[in-house]
């Protein structure tokens, strides 16, 4: 009893946090699909990180390619070759880096903007809150792909542009979600208590509101990554990606432009698409499982 009392507040918080993490993990493990998604994502992350070890980046060079043109899979090229004689497997491994990188960067941008806008729109009453809400709604109705196409056309093509485009067009959903959370948290007694104790706005947002919306942000992040990777694929497919780098989307663009569907070069068009579906599906499954763990209202499902 007396030893407990002497534990510092920080240690207590840490202990509670780790206990709740353990509880959450136990709940998460019950979702078979979520765990499966996590495992698949682990494999793809490992592939992306270990790309330089498992395959030579020289295989990406068009001029130094060794295979024949659109060669079907054999013992040397496990997944065949593309129209330049490059190994599809090598492209796939290196493409995972770009696809994941763009997806994660775009998500970071989207979460950053969305969280700030959502927090502000929910926390401030009166004109500021209403104006921010309106702006969010405006951005929500902008048809996403046409805007992305327009921005990507006007700006210099590149990885950062594409991540920026995706990030800047995908934040409103997050912002609205967070705003609705903040609106309900704002009315809770402990916020009132903090106000009475003299807490400033910044302190209230940072110490009392943000920690409560973070779980939602977290669950939402995985769903946003899924959308971001899909969008990267689509933009690259439309030829708006970085022309100097290989991603799954640009592979599909290549496959489409050489008519891989009509020539029957399934090894060119199938693998990148399957990778996209697997990764996006995994992010969605993990996101759903996380949402289930973090949102008790949904738990009965």
């Amino acid at each position, binding site marked *: 009893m007396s030893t407990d009392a002497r534990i510092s507040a920080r240690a207590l918080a840490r202990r509670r946090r780790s206990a709740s993490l353990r509880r959450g993990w136990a709940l998460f493990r019950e979702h078979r699909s979520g765990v499966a998604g996590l495992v698949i994502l682990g494999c793809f992350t490992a592939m992306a990180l270990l790309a330089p070890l498992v395959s030579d980046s020289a295989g990406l060079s068009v001029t130094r390619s060794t295979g024949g043109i659109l060669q079907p899979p054999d013992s040397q090229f496990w997944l065949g070759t593309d129209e330049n004689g490059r190994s599809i497997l090598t492209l796939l491994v290196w493409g995972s880096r770009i696809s994941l990188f763009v997806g994660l960067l775009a998500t970071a941008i989207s979460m950053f903007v969305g969280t700030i806008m959502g927090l502000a729109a929910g926390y401030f009453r009166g004109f500021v809150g209403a104006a921010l809400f*309106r702006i969010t*709604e*405006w951005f*929500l*109705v*902008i*048809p*996403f*792909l*046409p*805007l992305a*196409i*327009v*921005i990507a*056309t*006007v*700006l*210099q093509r590149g990885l950062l542009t594409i991540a920026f485009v995706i990030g800047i067009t995908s934040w409103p959903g997050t912002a609205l979600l967070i705003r609705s959370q903040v609106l309900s948290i704002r009315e809770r007694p402990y916020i009132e208590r903090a106000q009475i104790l003299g807490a400033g706005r910044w302190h209230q947002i940072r110490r009392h509101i943000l920690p409560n919306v973070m779980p939602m942000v977290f669950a939402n992040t995985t769903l946003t990554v*899924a959308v971001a990777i*899909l969008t990267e*694929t*689509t933009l690259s*497919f*439309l*030829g*708006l990606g970085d022309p100097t780098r290989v991603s799954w989307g640009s592979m*599909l663009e290549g496959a*489409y432009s050489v008519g891989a*569907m*009509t020539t*029957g070069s*399934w090894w060119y*068009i199938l693998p990148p*698409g399957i990778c*996209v*579906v697997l990764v*996006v*599906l995994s992010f*969605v*499954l993990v996101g759903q499982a996380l949402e289930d763990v973090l949102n008790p209202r949904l738990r*009965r*499902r």
Partner: protein
Amino acid sequence: MTIPASADVASVTTPKPRSGSGSRSGPGYRGYVLRKCLGALASLAFMIVLNFFLFRVLPGDPARTLGRGRFRTREQLEAFNRTYGLDEPLWRQFLTYLGNLVRGDLGVSLRYRVPVSQLIMDRLGTTLLLVGISTILATIIGVWMGIRSAWKRGGLFDRFSTGGSLTLYSMPEWWLGLMFIAVFSVGVGLFPTGGLHSVGVDPWSPAGWLDVARHLALPVATLTLAYLADYALIMRSSLLDEIGEEYVTTARAKGLRDVQVRDRHAVRNALLPTTTVIALNVGFVVTGAITVETVFSIPGLGLLATEALKVPDFWVLQGAFLVASAAVILANLAANLLYGLLDPRVRT
């Protein structure tokens, strides 16, 4: 099955026929409509301003991007700037832009040398046909799937339908289209690989309609599958929300048959959130139209936009973007008005 159900909701959930004093639904709804219309107008104004600035203020000199390095001399550049009014101050350019917009003048296509508005009008019908059929099919099938899987949650149908929906959701719709082309057009040879009609067939004869239907079968199937995933998942989750409610228990306790509890009570309420999602999805519908039209070479707005992208034909892109945004805003407004009609609670 779902369409009559949702039509019934209007007559059931709106309290009292509006022929009476109208004190409960009339004025409340009128104010609601007014507010929503004003909101839509504000959104439209925002889009118009955004559209102007996107093409003029974003980095780089429009003359350079538009010309793509075609100008060798300063005189050429200045002549170009004069033609497009780029030498005037920004506010005057904006006024000219607004004036042109009011007159329906969206500029002239750099590639086709015809007015953009004419290009868009020519292609709008095709896109509406493609997107309209797909949306209706996707809504009906998706809502039906959602109801069935929520009602027998965890059953075989549910697992199959939810798994399938999630996979479809995770799939780029154009990739699915490419797969369809590979299997059904190239492989089996059942359908043409692209285009809207065959050469030499009059599109306005019965044979021509059949021909168009054959051409549209794969794109419509692709878009339907791409859209229905969302609707099935949303319908499932909103029906699951309703199943836990007390009024459903009451309905069961009254001794109603299972189908009655489902169709007359739970589904009607669950359709409300689904309506919103279907409307909010219009932005996504536009996206699907762009890529699927490109893959199947259907001469609609989407293909127009992706072709303009290759040039790049800025005024066509700008016009297509404007039309797409206006469509989304209108669809949202329609959904909001419908929602207000169906559910009086949101009118406050």
